[in-house]
């Protein structure tokens, strides 16, 4: 089944091109009788510019789907196209290049480098893109400014609040101008006020910078920010 919805603000516009597409994707862990099907034939299509929320109980396969979408993992069966690439055929290094060039990650636990300044954390993906130091610095500052952290560049994660840390993580994810931003419960560790701030930030990025966003969340309140919601249950998409 294919979950699809009009994406753009005006229904009169033609549908945007497809960015990622799952076709009958399965993921099996283990072998034989102990085998566990985490994904059981998932079809999924996300167009450029969409803001999609993914919901589902734990164990429903949404994390597995996110890992595959993020090119951190490969499907056991079916196909996953990212733009024109058949991800299931790519090597580990090729997938790393895909992540480096087109994907941004925001994690529930922020996953910033400790004892490393906010600026250097945001610079990190640019280092792996071999961008010269001066340009790296300028772009990292701009990204921090975009998430409202001007003046906090030299603070380490330990010196920042949770909301600020998640802003740093978002800045790190968007500094490379990715085509797709994957957010895994970005507000899971934040209080309600901080959560809404982060959601406003993501909505703004999606609207103003045309960054496609896929966000896993448990909270229906947060899912309301998205254009549409995909529900996972027992390794399948149920809506």
């Amino acid at each position, binding site marked *: 089944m294919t979950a699809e919805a009009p994406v753009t603000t005006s229904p009169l516009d033609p549908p945007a091109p497809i960015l990622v597409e799952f076709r009958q994707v399965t993921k099996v862990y283990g072998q034989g009788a102990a085998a566990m099907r985490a994904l059981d034939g998932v079809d999924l299509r996300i167009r450029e510019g969409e803001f999609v929320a993914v919901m589902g109980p734990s164990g429903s396969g949404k994390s597995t789907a996110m*890992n595959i979408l*993020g090119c*951190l*993992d490969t499907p056991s069966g079916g196909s996953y196209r990212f733009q024109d690439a058949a991800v299931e055929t790519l090597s*580990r*290094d090729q997938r*790393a*290049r*895909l*992540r*480096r*060039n087109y*994907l941004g*990650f925001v*994690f529930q636990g922020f*996953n*910033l*480098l*400790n*004892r490393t300044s906010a600026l250097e954390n945001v610079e*990190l*993906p640019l*280092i*792996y*893109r*071999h961008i010269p130091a001066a340009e790296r610095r300028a772009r990292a500052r701009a990204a921090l400014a975009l998430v409202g952290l001007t003046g906090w560049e030299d603070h380490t994660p330990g010196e920042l609040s949770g909301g600020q840390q998640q802003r740093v993580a978002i800045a*790190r994810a968007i500094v490379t101008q990715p085509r797709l931003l994957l957010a895994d419960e970005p507000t899971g560790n934040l209080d309600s006020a901080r959560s809404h701030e982060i959601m406003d930030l993501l909505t703004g990025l999606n609207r103003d910078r045309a960054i496609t966003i896929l966000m896993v969340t448990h909270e229906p309140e947060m899912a309301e920010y998205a254009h549409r919601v995909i529900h996972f249950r027992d390794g399948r998409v149920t809506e």
Partner: protein
Amino acid sequence: MLWNAFLLALREIRRNVLRSILTILGVVIGVAAVIVMVTLGGGATQAVATQIETMGTNLLMIRMGQRMGPGSGIGVAPFKLEDAVALQRQVPSIRVLAPSANQTATAVAGNSSWATSVTGTDNRYLDVRNWPLAAGRVFSEGESRAGKAVCLIGATVQRELFGNQDPVGEKLRIKTMSCQVIGLLATKGQSSMGHDQDDLILMPLRTFQRRIAGNLDVTMIQVSIKEGESTEAAKADIERLMRERRKIGAGEQDDFSVRDMKELTDMLTGTTRILTTLLSAVAAVSLLVGGIGIMNIMLVSVTERTREIGIRLAIGALEREVLLQFLVEAVVLSSLGGILGILLALVAAVLLADVLQVPFIFNGGIVITAFLFSAAVGILFGYFPARRAARLDPIEALRRE
């Protein structure tokens, strides 16, 4: 990328200064030990060679008997002055030779007495041994021919008998003979075999034979070979002539020996070199142990930084970029150990050379080798932990707390 990896490595090392120092201590000690051993060994070898050189180059010693050392000439017919004359005349490669006879005797001057080696010879002895005077004059032609009671003394004899006083012109007594000191020999120091070369009195051979020994024996002939002549050929010539003169039949053993100083040099420096090599090998083992220490800490570091590695992999670091980062860190650590080891070694070698009375000879080759070796240890022992880091599954790594 390499530069970034280098900067990252420096930062990691700075973060754990104490741990880093402890980690590299093994390499520091290993490198230092190797350099100290090789440097001091080189100095000792050099010292042995120099000491033998002070005895005169191209030197052959003709002794009675076959063995080296005291007592070797017992029961063997001694040489005569005529042997020396014949050698000089019939072996053209001989530049100069010095016949000598020797005995241990007590010398007395004023209230002091000193048992020393008394040698009868002539000025050619000084030539052969390449031995200048510190004061006074050598024997005159007349003194040698007539067997006058005059002598030259070594620095040790001068110190024991005359103290700080100028000995030239003073008298000393050996057995019943009173003898005038006409010169003081320059200091030679200890020989490579550890005996004091300055502990001797020289007098004309004729004086020694008549007044001390009471016979016409010559116990040793020292020969200096002409520059550019083969020592081996000269040795063979001398042996042939001496066998003839001493009527040794074909197939019979020599009852004398002709020894080459070069043989002695090679033997002694060879021994020193073997010792140096052995000690250096032991030191090199400690360098390897140091490498294992680095591997251990790098493995700990990879475990501690699993999440960091996961983050790097997730945002697009390639396997080889993570590998390089950890490899560079290990190499920077071990090279740092190498540099500290070199500094420590140079200080220790200078101090120890002074204590052991061995010349300090800076050996640039071993310093560079030791440094490269320490870097190689980093690569060797850093590779396994680095590969482990690079092969981590980013999903698993990110889950780790």
